[in-house]
């Protein structure tokens, strides 16, 4: 932990995601307006004392929508990554510990999934179902577990031959116990790094989906759809592009800085 704080980059990352996290959690208290409050007399106002980030095409306060959008963007990121990490841990453990047929099947499955472009899968599923928050989270999660699987498997492969594992096996510990108490805890490093970086990717994917009209649905605010709503008049309503764009940039940057800092940290340990 100390190393993270010593490294200015990862410290910056930690600070950034903490601030955004706090803003997101307390969005309800911090928003001066109801993010869904429509006021057609206040359409497309530029930032001023009342509306710090201006208003959108339905007169809703952009600052409040940005705060709630933080909730949404982070929620999507975290849940999606949570799903992919859990799947990845399970499959990676089985493949790395048991080897043999299980390993072959799982790795071939990974190859198959990597061959089908993930954007196609996400697109197809969301287009066919409905672009709700839950579907988006699940689909992003279901299409990004491959990296974690490979990571966990690689860690298990190298850890499996170590003395403490052999000792535990001789002592008669069950496979599950060995995986859960010995192997997984020692593999945490790369998993954590991958998780942190995964949140960043998921936030970017959601904004891309919003651009195509397949992101989080109206009237819910997300950074992606605030940006997309304003794209046909960015010359006029610059605030609809600037703030969400910067927010996405800073958030993704923060997660990446932290993630890479953690990676350096863990690398130097091994």
């Amino acid at each position, binding site marked *: 932990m100390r190393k993270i704080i010593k490294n200015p980059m990862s410290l910056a990352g930690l600070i950034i995601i903490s601030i955004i996290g706090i803003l997101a959690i307390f969005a309800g208290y911090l928003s001066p307006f109801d993010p*869904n409050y*429509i006021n*057609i007399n206040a*359409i*497309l106002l530029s930032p001023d004392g009342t509306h710090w980030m201006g208003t959108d*095409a*339905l*007169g809703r306060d952009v600052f409040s929508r940005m705060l709630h959008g933080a909730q949404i963007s982070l929620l999507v990121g975290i849940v999606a990554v949570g799903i992919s990490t859990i799947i990845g841990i399970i499959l990676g453990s089985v493949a790395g510990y048991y080897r043999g047929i299980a390993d072959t099947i799982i790795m071939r499955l990974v190859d198959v999934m990597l061959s089908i472009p993930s954007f196609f899968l996400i697109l197809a599923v969301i*287009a*066919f*179902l*409905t*672009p*709700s928050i839950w579907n988006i989270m699940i689909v992003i999660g279901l299409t990004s577990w491959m990296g974690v699987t490979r990571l966990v498997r690689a860690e298990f492969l190298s850890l499996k031959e170590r003395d403490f594992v052999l000792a535990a096996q001789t002592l008669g510990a069950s496979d599950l116990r060995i995986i859960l108490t010995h192997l997984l805890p020692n593999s945490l490093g790369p998993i954590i790094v991958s998780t942190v970086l995964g949140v960043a990717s998921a936030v970017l994917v959601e904004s891309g989906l919003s651009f195509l*009209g*397949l992101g989080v*649905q*109206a*009237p819910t605010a997300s950074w992606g759809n605030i940006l997309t*709503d304003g*794209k*046909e*008049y*960015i*010359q*006029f*309503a*610059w605030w609809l592009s600037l703030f969400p764009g910067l927010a996405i940039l800073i958030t993704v940057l923060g997660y990446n800085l932290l993630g890479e800092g953690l990676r350096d940290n863990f690398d130097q340990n091994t």
Partner: protein
Amino acid sequence: MHKFLALLILSLVVGCNNSQNLDNTNYDDLIPPESGGALTNAMIGEPNNLIAMIAGDSASSAIAGQIFNALLKYDENLGFEGDLANSWTISDDYKKITFNLKQDIKWADDEPFTCEDVLFTWKKVTDPDTRTPYGSDYQLVSKASCANNHIFIAEYDEPYAPALETWASLHILPEHLLKNENINDTYFSLNPTGSNYYALDEWTTGQQVKLKTNPNSVHGRPLLEKKITRIIPDLSSQFMELIAGNIDLMNINPIQFSRVFPSRSELNDKINLYKEMGNGYTYFGFNLKKKPFDDINIRKAISYAINKEEIINGVLLGLGEEITSPYKPGTYWENKSINKISFDVSRSRELLEKSGYQLNANNIYEKDGKPLAFEILTNQNKQREMTAVLIQRRLQDIGIDVSIRVIEWASFVNRFIKTGEFEAVVLGWSLSLDPDQYSIWHSSQQGPGQFNFIGYNNPRVDTLLENGRKELNNEKRKQIYDEFSKIIYDEQPIIYLYAGYGLTAIHKKIKGVKKITPPAGVFHNDYEWYIPRKFRRNEMSL
């Protein structure tokens, strides 16, 4: 690397502070017509087949319409005039239309145009093997024949009032080029020969379609020598190209019309804006087969609870109108005598309570333990989405719990509309020029894939619609449809939300555009438009 970054930041800074007007030309000069020049516009989708009866998409018909003619067309007041026909007569029993075709007309390849072409086209569109979805209107013709090379006769078993409209939309194809071809597969669809103002010059897939003047054009040469349509799928990119002067015209949205242009004087120096009545209306549709929407009081209550003026001001920035009948405002068929349902919250509550609904602890109306809640479905269309959001807000205010779902088109049609698995929709229809509304409102049209998907069933309306199709006397016809639209409005199976205006931005270098847009629209006289030599782009090709 650093230099590049610095340049980038610099240009961003410079750019955001002011907009350099690199174009100091004065476009307001009055210059007499000159022929030549090329108009550049843009489309979001690419045509895929220039035989309009087979292509299903609007991009294809937009281009095909420049290349082909029909027998009739609309004049600037939306009456009928001859396109390939000089004149036409309708028999006294209204069962026979005789078209006198123009003579001494040639196709773009110099072959003569004759009645055989019309007969051939009719045979093709009614042929069950032709992959066209539009055959049904033409199958009503019991007998089509050529009296001689320039008289075409269409006979019907029963008088069919919309007939003239159908003959104004069928592009006549050249028999001599297509008689041995499989029309579903023919290369002609990518390289057609027509009779109208323009012919296909060059089609670069994915990028642009170029049209050039057809010297054999039925109506004589247009002033603009070429038309170039660029394919630009993203509307924000299109708008940027318009502002930069790379395309000459564009359909713009209300915000661009009312906010962007007025805030930029340099844009108004270069570009003129035009406003006209649009071609469609947006409505809120109930699934009449699902409770409680089978109860007319509930439907009316919801209609009273929706503030349509607010929707027009919010979504369209005031650039639209309320309608009470499905016809284009300002045209003959519009029923002006219907009293609007205004925005009246107390009336709405009255009707809900009359039907047995009471506000529950959550401030939502409830009856027999079931709260009044439903889901609005719509497709991926910004305006419809915003409309749904406004409706949701108003209904929520009054105590009706509404959620919104936006769905991609094919899923929308197949999973929800065809199956009848929906509660309410926000969708649009076009504002018809012919008053016939059979396929949308007749009770026989409720099958899967047909257009009476909301499940409307009214025997009186059925009779009116059947009679309306057979009545060729306009006054009597108007009475029929006035009664029809009154019943529809009284029963509120759909709530008419708005008819938006068509907003067009046209660069000032394009001269000849009518200052006052006629009912047929601003593009109606585009064959008279011209670009003075000094405003033309640097094209070395001419």
